[in-house]
């Protein structure tokens, strides 16, 4: 009898052990793999073409990766909370078009109008979240519908051809230099640090983890569930709006399809970074690694003269492989073999 109890006891202890260890190993492993892959790619690219693998390419990757790193924060939070945000194309375009249409090049107005643009994007995220929580529409349907509604409204608003130029602030954000460093790189580093603090060290971040793991358990534990489920969508939409403004500053104008190419990479970055697509697991630093890896790959592919289609195929295959490798069962199996 006592023997039985003791056995059960050790079994419990073991089960607990596996869980924490698996969690640690899973996230460290994927983050480390992504980082090593990035360095290998950059160094390896040197052998392919001498123009690659230089410090200036690193700078290019960081500037081009700016958009994806910012987007993957919002997308990562939404996926962490157990959802999926397919509204990015619409909200990115909304940010870009409002920035050129409302703000334009007028300098003084930019300081109070740009936050208004971000707030407008946040409202789109809020509507998505309310539809998902109150009306119980599946997240991907709700956000897909919102993206199409926003895109179509913008099409009507601009009569098919967006006008206006990039605000001065947005241009400075993407093309300026501070202390010899490009401004986007400095902003990017600040954003990553703040994003990491928010997701992994703040109360709100913990709430989102709790909601993504188990909504009912989170509710019982006293987590403000509704708020914690709305927050990721609003943050994601605002990140997308910010990217829209940055894109306008980078390319000096808005187009109606400017957001289309960023939806799938944003999900890919989060998944490659080791987040569970089912929510509750993942770190922002992992997503940042995923975003940088994808951007590095993109610059190498285009430097080698491959076409966009091939790049899409490679990106899709990476997502598929990442999803296959990061399945829960596989990690459990690996762990049991090591035991």
């Amino acid at each position, binding site marked *: 009898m006592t023997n039985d109890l003791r056995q059960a006891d050790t079994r419990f202890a073991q089960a607990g052990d596996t869980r924490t260890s698996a969690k640690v190993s899973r996230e460290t492993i994927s983050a480390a793999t992504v980082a090593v892959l990035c360095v290998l790619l950059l160094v390896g690219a040197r052998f392919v073409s001498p123009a690659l693998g230089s410090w200036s390419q690193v700078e290019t990757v960081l500037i081009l990766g700016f958009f994806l790193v910012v987007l993957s924060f919002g997308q990562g939070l939404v996926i962490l909370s157990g959802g*999926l945000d397919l509204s990015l194309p619409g909200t990115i375009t909304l940010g870009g078009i409002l920035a050129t249409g409302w703000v334009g090049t007028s300098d003084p107005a930019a300081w109070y109008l740009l936050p208004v643009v971000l707030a407008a994007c946040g409202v789109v995220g809020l509507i998505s979240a309310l*539809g998902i929580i109150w*009306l*119980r*529409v*599946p997240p*991907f*349907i*709700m956000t*897909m*519908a*919102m993206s*199409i*509604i926003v*895109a*179509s*409204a913008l*099409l*009507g608003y601009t*009569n*098919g051809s967006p006008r206006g130029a990039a605000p001065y602030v947005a241009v400075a954000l993407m093309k300026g230099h501070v202390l010899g460093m490009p401004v986007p790189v400095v902003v990017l580093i600040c954003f990553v640090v703040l994003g990491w603090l928010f997701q992994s060290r703040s109360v709100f971040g913990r709430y989102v983890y709790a909601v993504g793991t188990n909504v009912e358990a989170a509710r019982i534990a006293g987590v403000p569930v509704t708020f914690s489920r709305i927050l990721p969508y609003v943050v994601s939409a605002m990140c997308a709006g910010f990217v829209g403004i940055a894109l306008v500053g980078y390319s000096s104008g808005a187009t109606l399809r400017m957001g289309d190419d960023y939806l*799938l990479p944003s*999900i890919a970055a989060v*998944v490659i970074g080791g987040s569970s*697509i*089912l929510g509750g697991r993942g770190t922002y630093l992992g997503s940042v690694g995923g975003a940088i890896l994808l951007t590095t790959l993109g610059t190498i592919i285009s430097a080698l003269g491959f*076409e*966009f*289609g*091939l*790049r*899409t*195929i*490679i*990106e*899709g*295959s990476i*997502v*598929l492989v990442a*999803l*296959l490798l990061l*399945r829960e*069962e596989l990690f459990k199996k690996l762990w049991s073999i090591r035991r």
Partner: protein
Amino acid sequence: MIVGIYVVLYALYVYQQPRALSASAIAALFNNSAPLALAAAGQALVVISRGFDLSVAGVISLCNVTLAVYPMAGPGGALISVLICMAIGLLVGAVNGLLVAVLRMQSIAATLATMIICQGIALVILKAPGGTVADWIADEMTGRLWNAIPVSGLVVAIVVAVWLLIRRTNFGMAIYAIGADEQSASLSGMDTTRVRFLTYALAGVVYGLAGFMLSAQTATGNPTAGTPLLMLSFAAVALGGTSLAGGRGGLFASVMGAAVLMLLQKVLFSSGVSSFYTGVFQGAALILAVVLSGVLSRIGEAK
């Protein structure tokens, strides 16, 4: 119910455009709706089995560019073309089935990845919109049989008829069973992995047909031809009253849902709403349809 909505909408359309009653206008309406109707029919299969299939957009784009870049003349060429389309769909569907049924990946994630890859292949085959679909396909598949029956309508009718036959088989019932409750389906001795795999493969074949009909209608190639049909296919399925939680619904209702969506576009256009805003109404229709079907199923469960 969905048929009722269609009749009301159609009456409104005829009231606005009396010419809509002519045989050629009816055929045009059928031609417009056929690709979406087929896409929705395939989507309905997957949704009934409790899954989502985003690869529909990729398969349709892939079939479209294939037909536009490698046109084959004459009825024989059309036959080979339609077989190629169905084979493409079958292949992609089988990959989806492998990922979702055998490797147990989440359906949205797996089909999202296959959709990206298909879109990439489509872009490699054809970089920018262009190319011409074989004349025979473009003419005959959008024409009328004996000057009365629209061929596109016939194709959709055949798919629905085949489904009505399949539905009576063990496989057909198993699709509903695993959608309603996979565990109890498995406990009652069904090979759920096999059924789920075949569901995705079958859906892929129907998407291939949708790609074929879309190519016949547009007569040209576009590497992103399937993208607009992605959201609309879900909207059509939801409008048709198929529960997105799986286990309930049908193909015919989804086909009618697709017809309503396309007719809605025509009615809006003839009411003078700028075509720019079509997306606003379609997106709203999607959300409304999902909410309504959710409310109806909850009322049904409460009874």
